[in-house]
């Protein structure tokens, strides 16, 4: 594995992350770094454990072993306990001794926002409301004040609305702000998911197959868009993607998973030349 040299600070670090469901190891000893303002790609064939890795970072799953560091602080850590102690099939058992868990909303509050592989917009709400939901966590008025429309609540609602509008303008959805989220065309729904994630004021953005289902023209636009928001919002981005065009076009560093295990990492050029990766994609047996 190629040693990675980067002087920027590490904002997200996965150490020995292993996720085992019953007897199946979905993610096997994943080590990954995302540096400040870096765009990192996570690729691998279907079922390689990419989304599971995302779920471990965002607190949806508790990893079976390993730790997640966000901005230099360990926020998630676990080791095989209980029944898993004997059933554990991964590496580095015993290396971790703490059990730190974090719910997804807390992870989001730490500045890690995500999108979903199968779009998960709020169906019963308008585009604008979808974005405003993501700002809810940053408002400070109590439910009582909000219900009875205290001065603070009105001000906060107003700022929220203005900010959401602003954001929608940036992602070209301003015209659609009052449409139902599900009535948007597919590509715009993807944009909205990203806009919604941005509304949580993240420093790290996790994109799960943002270009899925897009044609070359659309994915090209998306690529530019991702680059633009990275600069505009000062983001570090970790993305899962199957469109190699996109991955190779914008990622500075790429990690490759297969059957849960990490088979390679490096710059796009290195990955393209890596024989293990080619084998994984072409299928070694055939």
């Amino acid at each position, binding site marked *: 594995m190629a040693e990675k040299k980067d002087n920027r600070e590490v904002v997200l670090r996965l150490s020995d992350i292993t996720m085992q*469901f019953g007897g199946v190891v979905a993610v096997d000893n994943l080590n990954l770094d995302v540096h400040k303002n870096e765009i990192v790609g996570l690729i691998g064939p279907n079922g390689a454990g990419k*989304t599971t890795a995302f*779920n471990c970072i965002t607190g*949806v799953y508790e990893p079976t072993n390993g730790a997640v560091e966000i901005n230099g602080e360990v926020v998630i850590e676990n080791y095989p306990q209980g029944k898993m102690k004997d059933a554990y099939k991964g590496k580095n058992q015993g290396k971790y001794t703490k059990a730190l868990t974090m719910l997804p909303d807390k992870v989001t509050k730490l500045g890690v926002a995500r999108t*979903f592989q199968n779009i998960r917009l709020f169906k019963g709400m308008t585009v604008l409301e979808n974005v405003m939901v993501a700002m809810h966590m940053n408002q400070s008025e109590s439910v009582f004040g909000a219900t009875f429309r205290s001065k603070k609540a009105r001000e906060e609602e107003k700022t929220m609305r203005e900010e959401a509008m602003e954001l929608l303008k940036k992602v070209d959805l301003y015209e659609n702000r009052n449409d139902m989220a599900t009535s948007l065309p597919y590509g715009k729904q993807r944009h909205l998911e990203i806009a919604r994630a941005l509304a949580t004021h993240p420093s790290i953005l996790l994109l799960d197959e943002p270009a899925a289902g897009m044609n070359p023209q659309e994915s090209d636009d998306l690529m530019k868009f991702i680059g633009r928001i990275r600069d505009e919002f000062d983001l570090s981005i970790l993305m899962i993607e199957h469109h190699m065009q996109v991955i190779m076009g914008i990622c500075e560093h790429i990690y490759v998973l297969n059957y849960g295990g990490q088979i390679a990492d490096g710059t796009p050029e290195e990955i393209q030349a890596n024989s293990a990766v080619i084998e994984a994609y072409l299928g070694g047996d055939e």
Partner: protein
Amino acid sequence: MINTWLPYILAGIAVGGQYALIAIGYTMVYGILRLINFAHGDVFMWAGLIMVYLVTILPIWASIIVVIIFAILLGTSIEKVAYRPLRSAPRMSIMISAIGVSYLLQNFALYITGGLTKTYPTIKWLQKSVKIGSASTKMVTVITPILTIVLVVLLVLLIQKTKIGMAMRAVSRDFETSSLMGIDINRVITVTFVIGCGLAAIGSVLYFSNYTGIQPMSGAMPGLKAFVAAVFGGIGSVPGAVVGAFIIGVCENLIKGAGWTTFSDAFTFVLLIIILMVKPTGLFGEKNIDKV
């Protein structure tokens, strides 16, 4: 000591066996459709009610057969009319539909019976008094657990060994994939309802032979308790439902025996909440992982 508690334990085992026969319907339907079939208890009640009217024109043995057929037809038609059209609808809608069907069955029974309690026909053999140790009880108390266990063993064999049983297991594991694999989902569901309602009908014969009054609400409480038994045993698991039902039956009667009669029904729900908190998958259930 044992003599004092014997009648309660006997009653508990009997009623537990009857709950078990109802609970199987709940657990199988839930296992496959992920639906609490609220109307199941009312199908049970209707099986009892129809028996009352049938014995006036048919001999007892024939009535029992017709009652079982009737319950099966009722259950499967409920599924066809009220659940099948909603299969792709949100889970809440199908549950509401189940509650609606339950409401309809109860009110229809209310109309038919005029709100009066109907006395269940006497099946002499089941209702004759027997003495066990120092306690005297009805024959049905002795028959119920034996019959229940025999039926459950047969059912488990059916699920484990036959092709349709395999299909049922597949569907309960993964609804969509099994339908892609060419399993006729509708047929599997129909068979599930046939088994569930048939057993409920047998349960009704035993239950109402023991507690001979039937009124429109007669199915509601046993239904809820049977459902709790199914959850307790691990929903989707037939042996689990049976074990759960026996435990609930016995505990309920012991609680009454201890003088806490006000809480005999509430106890079931306390048990439910404890099990949901401590081990939501029940005694024999399996863990499900939500996909994100």
